[in-house]
């Protein structure tokens, strides 16, 4: 049931991304080179360079050959050159990537784990005041867009209370190392992660809670209770373990949301990740960067989803590969 069908879907998605990336600039009216590089960059180029680029991109050849050239270049890891940053796109992106990974990774793990635990506890006490309060609370929290939450946190803790720094991933030119460096990074990381985690907490919570409700009605829960097992064991080992399964399936999709959210949060906190890079590139109309980011993000999300799909059967013994 799993891999074959998903593989095809992922392949189609991949193709779509490639084609989109390829087609957009070439669909624009006017000089395709301008569309690829943006008019500002073009001004800086010499005619010889322009000719070189035309050749590189095979812009004077038929469309399918262009696609071939494009595809080939992609495979060789050549994502283009950014005139704004004066460096190859790939290196620019890679320079910013670690911060985004840190941000997204931490938030995803935290929000999912916390969401699951809250969901289990809430589902276990379904209908009680605690449950209803948590439900209303988290659903309301879910309504706050990540950038708004970020801004509120920034203003509350950064500007007003001054506990956390206002921008960046670390204090520039501070020359810190070792533990002090780690602490500095963490202080800068705290608010952005908090914003992202809180904004996406409800995803895991709602799904786990819903699944818990159905799971608790299953016969094996009565069996477990009859075995005289403690509440904790019943909640987590028996009910929780079964309630987690849909969450794992959905994590791939949530990752897409968190990545999107990171975009906004980085903007709010001027956090130097790929998201902030995108924003800068948008302002500067640096198309190669935008395209490069798009490609990287989209493909990473695809790959992550695929890996998650592969690992699901390990968690649910009822499911097996259907090759």
């Amino acid at each position, binding site marked *: 049931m799993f891999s074959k069908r998903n593989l095809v879907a992922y392949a189609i998605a991949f193709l779509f991304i490639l084609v989109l990336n390829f087609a957009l600039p070439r669909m624009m009216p006017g000089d395709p080179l301008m569309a690829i590089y943006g008019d500002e960059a073009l001004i800086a180029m010499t005619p010889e360079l322009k000719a070189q680029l035309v050749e590189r991109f095979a812009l004077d050849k038929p469309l399918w050959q262009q696609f071939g050239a494009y595809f080939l270049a992609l495979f060789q890891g050549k994502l283009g050159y950014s005139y704004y940053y004066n460096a190859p796109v790939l290196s620019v992106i890679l320079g910013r990537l670690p911060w985004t990974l840190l941000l997204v990774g931490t938030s995803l793990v935290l929000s999912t784990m916390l969401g699951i635990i809250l969901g289990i506890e809430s589902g276990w006490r379904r209908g009680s005041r605690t449950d209803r309060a948590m439900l209303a609370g988290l659903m309301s929290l879910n309504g706050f867009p990540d950038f708004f939450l970020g801004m509120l946190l920034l203003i509350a803790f950064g500007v007003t209370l001054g506990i956390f720094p206002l921008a960046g991933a670390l204090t520039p030119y501070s020359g810190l190392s070792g533990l002090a460096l780690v602490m500095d990074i963490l202080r800068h990381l705290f608010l952005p992660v908090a914003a992202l985690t809180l904004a996406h907490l409800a995803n895991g919570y709602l799904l786990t809670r819903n699944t818990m409700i159905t799971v608790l009605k299953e016969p094996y829960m009565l*069996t477990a209770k*009859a*075995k*005289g097992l403690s509440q904790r064991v019943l909640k987590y080992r028996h009910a929780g*373990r079964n309630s987690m399964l849909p969450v794992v399936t959905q994590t791939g999709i949530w990752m897409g949301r968190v990545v999107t959210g990171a975009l906004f949060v980085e903007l709010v906190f001027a956090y130097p990740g790929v998201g902030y890079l995108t924003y800068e590139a948008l302002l500067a109309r640096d198309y190669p960067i935008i395209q490069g980011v798009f490609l990287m993000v989209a493909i990473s999300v695809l790959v992550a989803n695929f890996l998650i799909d592969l690992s699901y059967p390990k968690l649910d*013994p*009822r499911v097996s590969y259907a090759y």
Partner: protein
Amino acid sequence: MLEIKDLRVSYGQDVILNGIDLELGSGETLAIVGESGTGKTTLGLSIMRLTEGTVRGVIRFNGKDLLALSDNEMQQIRWSQIAIVFQNANNVLNPVYTVLNQIMEPMVEHGLKSRDEARDRTAELLRYFGFPRDRFSAYPHQLSGGEQQRVLLAMAMANNPELLILDEPLSSLDAASRTEIGNLLRETDKHGAKLVVTHDLDTVSKLADRMAVLYGGKIIEAGLTRDVFSRPRHPYTRALIRAYPNMTTVKDLQGIKGRMTRPVSGCPFHPRCTQVIDICRTKTPHLVWSEGRHIACHRGGIITLLSTKNLTTSFGSLKAIESVNLHIEAGETLALVGQTGSGKTTLAKTIMGLHQPTEGDVYLENTKVDNRGKDFYKRVQMVFQNPGESLSHRLSVLEAVMEPLDIQGIGTDEERKERAIQVLGEVELPQTRNFLNKYPHQLSGGEMQRLAIARALVLDPALLIADEPTAFLDASIQAKILKLLLNLQEQRGLSMLYITHDIAAARKVSDRIAIMLDGRVIEEGPSNEIITAPKQGYTKNLLTAASALHSTESSGIEQQTLNSQ
């Protein structure tokens, strides 16, 4: 070791268990028998405090009242001292953990074994219950129904509980597995006590020494299994056994009239009981000890309707019947089988008062019958051999059926007519005006016999004596008449004295059979015993000579003369 007193369980407004008393000692196996919805599963669950309803009463286990314990204390007792084997269904086992894991779990969690010890014991248990070695790490969804049942059993025995509750342990298994597992269960843990909850009488006979029958939230009969099976004393128990097909059943299956309802007051069975009296409707009978049995019935169980003591009737020097001792219980059919001249009809007529006995007495509901007045005939009626003769050719159908009512002076003319028409419906005769005006010679043999039966029923008797009711009829009609009689018994709780020479027909309608030869009853007992294990030579001859559709030519059936002594 287990003592339950006045246990009451209800879910909101619904009362599921209405005062249960029972006792179970070490080494005993008690079966709680009931049909679906009677609350037997609830009983099992409430002992372990796993029900969600309101529970009241006392459940004393080894001296401690389980209902008074705290949640923590109960949690410790669960699965270490009392365990339950749930009914085998989907998802009784957690789908994400292996079989091995789930059996080890209660051992480890209760701190009774280390992981290694638990693993060894699990292997031992699974081996004992016949679970294949190479499947220990299988997941529940990979198991067959039989395998899953074995796992459930092994899992329950994990901590060697003193009390084991089994909910339908054999119902989902095939015949071979049933015997195997049944034996395993009986051998296992002879010191512990077992409570088996089931609707399946086969399970009861395989596993339990004692049984208690549950109806309407109460126990209505309890005793040793073999006693209850051979001689059920509560009308419900008898009906239950009659409805259950097994290899020893000879009588056709009968249902119980009506549907299970919960009457507001009185005995829970009274709407469906065929020997109900006024008190049954108002007061709930208690479970009392009587003659080796616990029974909850205001009438002390199934009553004896008619009995004869040393009955002898002579015509001059010829003793037509001699020293006949018989009894017929309420709602049962006694078949009287014998050849022509054995005295069957004489006996019937003596009981009816058409002949005077020279010695002995007849008792109706334990009262001696001296003069047979109208009251007697209201309770005992007879259907004669030849309907052509017993029906007056002067009376129309309606008049014939109304005749007994007219004689007894019951009701108004209108009421009698209504009653007559109703009874005609019961025997499945038309109730049209056209039919009512017909005369006996215009009817077929089958219709005439039905008419005769209708006439006998119109007074609503408790006992119907049917003398060779199908002798003059074709085979197919005979079948219908027999079915009709069985139906009437089911609906009205009618007792029958079924007189016939045909032992094959007798076996299909009777609970007990009495064999008559030369005026004496030479053998008598439950139908299935007489048919499968007759003691008297004459009886054996009768059986051999009885109509068998498939007779073996080669071995040759010995056709002994039936007139020999």
